[in-house]
């Protein structure tokens, strides 16, 4: 995505990669036979997943009574896990959608894996309400469809049904977004594969060719999907929080819940992305694509969202006191000092205190600490949901029905099983698909590769965006200086000198027209003197940094046409073919010759 990158930004791709290196590095994990580490991890995950399936079967066979839920505690580990998993999913959409809208280039390194994580996490989450309802085989009754029961419809006024819609939509949109981005990368894998693998990837890549029109639509689609996924991701956890906030349970019916849940979801999601990416980059050797810079950026998001969560916790406490409502006050007193005090302090410690380490740049860039804290945050966010759900329900309005909730082995088994499910899917994903979005990383190479920006840059003249159409010409001029540089082994300082020297030479021979009396940039010529240019067009040209005759001479026809086309339908019909030759005469002050030329022209166009 195009945007101008500041020269002080750190590179996002290190190791002086070429386009081919990127393909090689990112596709090769899918081509190699898996190593022992992967095999061990996969067998472990599948075994854990199998145990989870066993526990689910046990639940369905014997009934929901195998869980330690009771009269007051209707929601226990099941809904805690549901909210936890859904929250984890949020980082993927945030990275792929919101950061796309904000033109954050570092998203390209992690978006693919984070989106995959979203999809797997939502699947794990959806499992819980599915089996929690008891009769899992009729769970489709939730969906409104004409049926033989009346037709009897679900209750559209209920937040639980909103949740169903939110999560199914979220899953579908994430899947479509993810797969659309994968298609060009599957094509890259296809074009390197042979035999049966080629057939598989041929099907997966949908016959992608890389045609210019397809790319244009691809970008348009990505942008709009990002635009609609942004409110979607915010709505999902908002609606999850409605499950609680619209109830009349003290400690739940809190208006702060929607923003607090969304911030918490992003917080836990980024923690999970970090946990996974730190392992993935190490195992698959992707340190050049998922750099310390990426980790630091994510740690900043963690710091912000963690602090928002902390403020929300304190606000809740304040409001409970300020409301002078004894039930609300008791709910919070009970959370902090009741029988589940350890979960409350676990939550406060893990979510509020630990992220504060990230105020320090040094600690943000410490991989070991980041990894450790990301796990702490995952635990803390699980505690948060447990605190909200179980501790509140254990002490309701009637002291006679107070109880203490401990999960049964079945509940624990299902939770562990979803971990197995999640990692099984993730491990399969890293084997079959490029973990980093290949095409997207290539688009940022010339602006964020370390040979173009940062301390090791060879191409020092390349700080600005190469993909901005308005600047494409001067970039091209710049680029001639190093189009075929073989100088990667030369120390950077030497190279810089050599390169700039060479560049100066090349600039002279390039066909840029520089008359001896070059005017200052600030001076504006009256471009209306050129036949075919009126005041409106002059304005358009000025906006594209063409304000003198010389600028006009140095701009080729293709670009002028592009500028006019971008300016709208009224400008499209104008033909700028002769403007440059007219401007050349004007710049040299040959007004008579210009007059003569213009007499021959018809409205700025060559007579036919």
């Amino acid at each position, binding site marked *: 995505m195009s945007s101008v990158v500041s020269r002080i930004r750190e590179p996002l791709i290190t190791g002086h990669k070429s386009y*081919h290196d990127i393909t090689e590095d990112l596709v090769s994990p899918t081509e190699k036979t898996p190593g022992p580490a992967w095999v061990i991890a996969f067998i472990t995950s599948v075994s854990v997943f199998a145990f989870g399936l066993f526990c689910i079967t046990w639940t369905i066979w014997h009934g929901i009574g195998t869980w330690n839920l009771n009269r007051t505690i209707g929601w226990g580990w099941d809904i805690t896990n549901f909210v936890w998993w859904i929250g984890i999913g949020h980082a993927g959409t945030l990275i792929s959608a919101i950061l796309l809208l904000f033109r954050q280039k570092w998203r390209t390194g992690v978006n693919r894996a984070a989106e995959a994580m979203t999809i797997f996490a939502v699947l794990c989450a959806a499992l819980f309400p599915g089996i929690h309802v008891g009769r899992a085989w009729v769970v489709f009754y939730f969906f409104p469809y004409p049926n033989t029961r009346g037709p009897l419809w679900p209750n559209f006024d209920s937040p639980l049904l909103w949740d169903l819609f939110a999560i199914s*939509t979220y899953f579908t949109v994430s899947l*479509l977004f993810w797969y659309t981005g994968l298609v060009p990368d599957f094509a890259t894998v296809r074009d390197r594969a042979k035999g049966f693998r080629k057939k598989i990837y041929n099907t997966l890549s949908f016959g992608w060719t890389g045609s210019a029109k397809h790319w244009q639509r691809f970008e348009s689609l990505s942008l709009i999907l990002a635009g609609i996924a942004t409110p979607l991701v915010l709505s999902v956890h908002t609606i999850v929080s409605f499950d609680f906030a619209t109830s009349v349970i003290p400690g739940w019916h809190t208006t702060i819940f929607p923003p607090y849940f969304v911030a918490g979801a992003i917080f836990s999601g980024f923690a999970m992305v970090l946990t996974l990416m730190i392992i993935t980059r190490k195992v698959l050797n992707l340190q050049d694509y998922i750099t310390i810079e990426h980790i630091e950026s994510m740690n900043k998001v963690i710091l912000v969202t963690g602090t928002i969560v902390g403020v929300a916790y304190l606000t809740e406490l304040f409001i409970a006191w300020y409301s002078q409502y004894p039930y609300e006050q008791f709910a919070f007193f009970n959370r902090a000092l009741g029988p589940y005090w350890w979960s409350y302090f676990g939550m406060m410690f893990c979510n509020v205190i630990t992220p504060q380490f990230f105020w320090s740049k040094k600690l943000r860039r410490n991989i070991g600490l980041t990894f450790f804290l990301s796990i702490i945050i995952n635990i803390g966010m699980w505690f948060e949901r447990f605190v909200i759900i179980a501790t509140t329900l254990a002490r309701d309005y009637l002291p006679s029905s107070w109880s203490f909730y401990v999960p049964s082995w079945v509940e624990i088994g299902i939770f562990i099983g979803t971990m197995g499910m999640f990692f099984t899917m993730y491990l399969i994903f890293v084997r079959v698909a490029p973990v980093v979005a290949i095409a997207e990383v290539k688009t940022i190479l010339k602006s964020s590769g370390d040979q173009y920006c940062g301390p090791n840059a060879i191409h020092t003249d390349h700080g600005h965006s190469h993909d901005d159409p308005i600047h494409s010409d001067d970039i091209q001029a710049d680029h001639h200086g190093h189009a075929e540089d073989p100088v990667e082994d030369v120390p950077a300082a030497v190279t810089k000198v050599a390169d700039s020297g060479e560049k100066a030479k090349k600039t002279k021979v390039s066909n840029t027209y520089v008359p001896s009396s070059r005017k200052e940039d600030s001076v504006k010529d009256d471009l209306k003197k050129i036949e075919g240019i009126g005041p409106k067009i002059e304005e358009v040209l000025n906006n594209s940094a063409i304000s003198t005759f010389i600028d006009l001479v140095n701009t080729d026809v293709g*670009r002028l*046409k592009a500028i006019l086309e971008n300016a709208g339908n009224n400008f499209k019909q104008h033909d700028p073919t002769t403007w440059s030759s007219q401007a050349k005469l004007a710049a040299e002050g040959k007004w008579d010759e210009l007059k003569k030329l213009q007499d021959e022209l018809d409205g700025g166009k060559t007579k036919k």
Partner: protein
Amino acid sequence: MSYKNRSIVYGLYNDETELLSAVKEANKKHLKIMDVFTPFPIHGLDPLLGLEESRLHIGGFIFGSLGTLTAFLGMTWIFTKDWPQIYGGKPHWAVPAFIPITFELTVLFAAIGMVVTYYIINGLGPGVENPYIDPRITDDKFCLAFDIHEVNQAEAEALLNETGAAEVNAKTL
């Protein structure tokens, strides 16, 4: 937009800036470009090729509006005509309670509609076999292709060579 059975002459470039200048050169010489194939989207290419802005977003708006109407009118019909019930003392036509589902279906319809449209108009889908120009186009080569029935082949080849194409070939797709 399949290029099956078309005879083309094409050049492979090593860098997108070379490709861009070649496209400009071709425009200058009024050589009709069949298409450009690249490993990633190149900005500034669309206006040079005379591609109009994609209208996919209009489709997205229409599909989204369809979702809004489906959800809102559907719930309205169900709760006021088909099976009116009182839940929690709310009126039958409880507009604020309909907003979340209306929003979700708007997004769902827009997303599915646009993605399906995108694949259909691109002629892409599972099992589609598109003609194959060069496997390196999805890696690091930038391909500029002319149809030899639309341009003079010698002229096109000369242009490709002059503008620094690393390889120039002809082939029937």
